[in-house]
């Protein structure tokens, strides 16, 4: 956990007081809605279909129990008793009143969380591997660097009015859980031949209307130079990114139009000018940030405690354990994913009561720490294995122990037409229907790893392009229809899915997904050939045939 110091606290309070003043000026009419729009957007406030939507950042997906309790409090006091975790390690509240916002922000500031730059054309929440700091084999904890980037980009005077929004993601593991290849800047912390740590920098990834996989702009940027290198990229983008067309304004278009070599040259030229400026991070500065992260005092525990051996007799526990529990870098501990994808539920939603209960359980079993992943689930990063049976019973009671992590019902979905003013189609009800179709855990388990991602419009908040099965809602002649892609993935082998054929109506989406899954089960070489690998081997054709033969 990173602990705010006096400087962080002062800044966040200053931001709250500024926003309070801005809201006051809006309510008095001194600010027009147009002027206020950019201001509120800089603070995560959107005007949605029914009300203002308020988005709070969870930097690099790490929350303390006190912070989670405060989010529950905001849900209860200012909203309708629940929140929605997004694909970018944010939480959204859908029913907030403008006049209440400054108070909500002040409450959140007490525990060191904020909504700065969760929207607007600026650097957004810096996201990271949700297992950072605990994943076996990690190079080092990438959150140190994510925090440096959070501070660097917060209220940046030069880069708060970029051509378009700007997203960073960072990982330090070989297996990418942070989807760095579909971010404006993706950072992979690794060790070079000389054993020094630094960053592979990717640029120009992104989804939306024109999806691109990020390209490597530099294989190795030493930590010392991270901020100057990032500043060089942002400066080139701020000056040359397109501002004539909102759909062409993301950095991916600039990189694409210039070509990565030319873009890299521009960045390199700029970088050489600022590399040795005050942006250079000397080791003491990095150490200072590192020292503000606290780590649990792990006990020396047996790798296989008796509690676990005994509980193995219970098939339900075993189903959950094999699905939701992952190895930890410290012997005797585990990482536990809390599924926010109950059968029939809205993906990523949690009630205030659930958040409070999760916070209490985190205190009891996870050193008071909770993580939020881009798949819209939560995780406990430090659970002693001997506590797993007790934890499982407690999680099951509050409905977050569905053993479906990474399975077909672990669906990523954006809010869609139920809330979002930009939506063309519903996403949540599609997800709900799919979870009912595959509710039988044995069936889901038999199918194996399969990521279904759903977006309610081309903006792709549900990351449909990189779903193993991607579902995109579009509008055709006043009706909601859905384009289906297969073969997408968001990890280190990121790929965009391919369209299987013409769009299908709302009522048929779940049938089509079932057809695709059945085709896969019939076609896979072995039970452990994953869906994504089968699609890679076979191509789209056999799936297309199966789906459209009878349509």
């Amino acid at each position, binding site marked *: 956990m990173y602990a705010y*110091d006096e*400087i*962080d606290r*002062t*800044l966040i309070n*200053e931001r709250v*007081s*500024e926003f309070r003043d*801005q809201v006051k000026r809006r309510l008095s009419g*001194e600010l027009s809605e147009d*002027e206020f729009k*950019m*201001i509120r957007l800089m603070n995560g406030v959107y005007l949605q279909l029914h009300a203002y939507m308020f988005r709070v950042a969870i930097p690099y997906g790490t929350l303390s129990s006190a912070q989670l309790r405060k989010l529950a409090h905001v849900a209860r006091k200012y909203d309708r008793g629940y929140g929605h975790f997004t694909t970018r390690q944010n939480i959204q509240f859908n029913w907030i009143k403008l006049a209440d916002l400054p108070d909500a922000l002040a409450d959140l500031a007490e525990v060191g969380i904020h909504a700065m730059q969760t929207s607007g*054309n600026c650097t957004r929440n810096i996201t990271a591997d949700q297992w950072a700091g605990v994943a076996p084999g990690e190079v080092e904890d990438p959150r140190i660097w994510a925090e440096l980037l959070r*501070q*660097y*980009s*917060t*209220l*940046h*005077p*030069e*880069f*708060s*009015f*970029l051509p378009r929004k700007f997203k960073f993601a960072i990982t330090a593991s070989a297996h990418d859980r942070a989807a760095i290849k579909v971010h404006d800047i993706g950072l992979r912390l690794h060790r070079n031949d000389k054993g020094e740590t630094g960053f592979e920098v990717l640029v120009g990834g992104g989804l939306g209307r024109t999806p691109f996989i990020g390209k490597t702009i530099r294989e190795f940027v030493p930590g010392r130079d991270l*901020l100057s290198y990032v500043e060089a990229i942002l*400066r080139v983008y*701020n*000056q040359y990114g397109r*501002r004539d067309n909102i759909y062409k304004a993301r950095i991916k278009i600039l990189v694409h139009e210039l070509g990565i070599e030319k873009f890299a040259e521009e960045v390199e030229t700029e970088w050489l*000018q600022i590399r040795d*400026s*005050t*942006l250079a*991070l000397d080791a*003491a*500065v990095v150490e*200072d*940030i590192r020292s503000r992260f606290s780590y649990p005092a792990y006990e020396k525990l047996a790798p296989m405690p008796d509690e676990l051996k005994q509980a193995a007799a219970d098939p339900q526990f075993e189903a959950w354990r094999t699905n939701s529990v992952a190895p930890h870098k410290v012997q005797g501990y585990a990482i536990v994913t809390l599924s926010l994808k109950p059968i029939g539920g809205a993906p990523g939603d949690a009630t205030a009561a659930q958040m409070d209960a999760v916070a209490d359980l985190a205190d009891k079993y996870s050193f008071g720490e909770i993580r939020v992943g881009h798949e819209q689930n939560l995780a406990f990063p430090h659970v002693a294995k001997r506590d797993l049976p007790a934890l499982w019973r407690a999680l099951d009671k509050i409905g977050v122990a569905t053993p479906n992590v990474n399975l077909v019902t672990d669906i990523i979905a954006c809010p869609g037409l139920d809330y979002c003013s930009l939506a063309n189609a519903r996403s949540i009800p599609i997800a709900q229907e799919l979870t009912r179709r595959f509710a039988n855990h044995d069936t889901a388990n038999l199918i194996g790893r399969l990521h279904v991602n759903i977006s309610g419009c081309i903006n792709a908040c549900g990351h449909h392009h990189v779903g193993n099965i991607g579902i995109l809602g579009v509008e055709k002649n006043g009706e909601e229809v859905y384009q289906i892609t297969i073969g997408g993935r968001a990890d280190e082998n990121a790929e965009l899915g391919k369209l299987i054929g013409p769009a299908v109506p709302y009522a048929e989406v779940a049938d089509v997904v079932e057809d695709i899954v059945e085709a896969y089960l019939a076609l896979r070489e072995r039970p452990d050939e994953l869906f994504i690998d089968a699609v890679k081997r076979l191509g789209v054709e056999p799936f297309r045939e199966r789906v459209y033969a009878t349509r």
Partner: protein
Amino acid sequence: MPLVNKGQIVSDGFVHLADDAKLPSDGAVLVSATRFLANAESLSARNSPVGVIWPNNRSVDELAPWLDRLAAVALVFPTFRDGRAHSQARLLRERHHYRGELRATGQVLRDQFTFLLRNGFDSFEVKKDSDAHAFAEATQRYTEFYQPTGDGRQTALERRLRQRHSESANS
């Protein structure tokens, strides 16, 4: 439109000269980039101050040969959402070491004052009277800054290091 210069509301000493208007023999003038570049030698040799209004889609490197003779550079925010002039300002101050007046023009609102100051602007053509009057309040709101710019303010990282050193010196 009120002008705030070095924190005070002042009257504008510069006359905005249209491209086809006759150049007055004395008095400060602000001319367009096109006009300036067409007559840069003679304009910058003028005895009275000359400033240039520089568009946000043109590299400020082009101005480099004239910077020590320019009294003012006015950068443009067609809307405050268009942030290109923020980069231009920092490049003028930090790379080209321009020391004259650096003016923000266009849609300049209270909510950007601190950013503009940090990027090196010292003069502001402010859209609204109320914003101009709120200049002091708006620019004193923040006391902590996370990132370095050429404004010389101490960043959070630097302050922390200093605090650490003084703590260890005292212990």
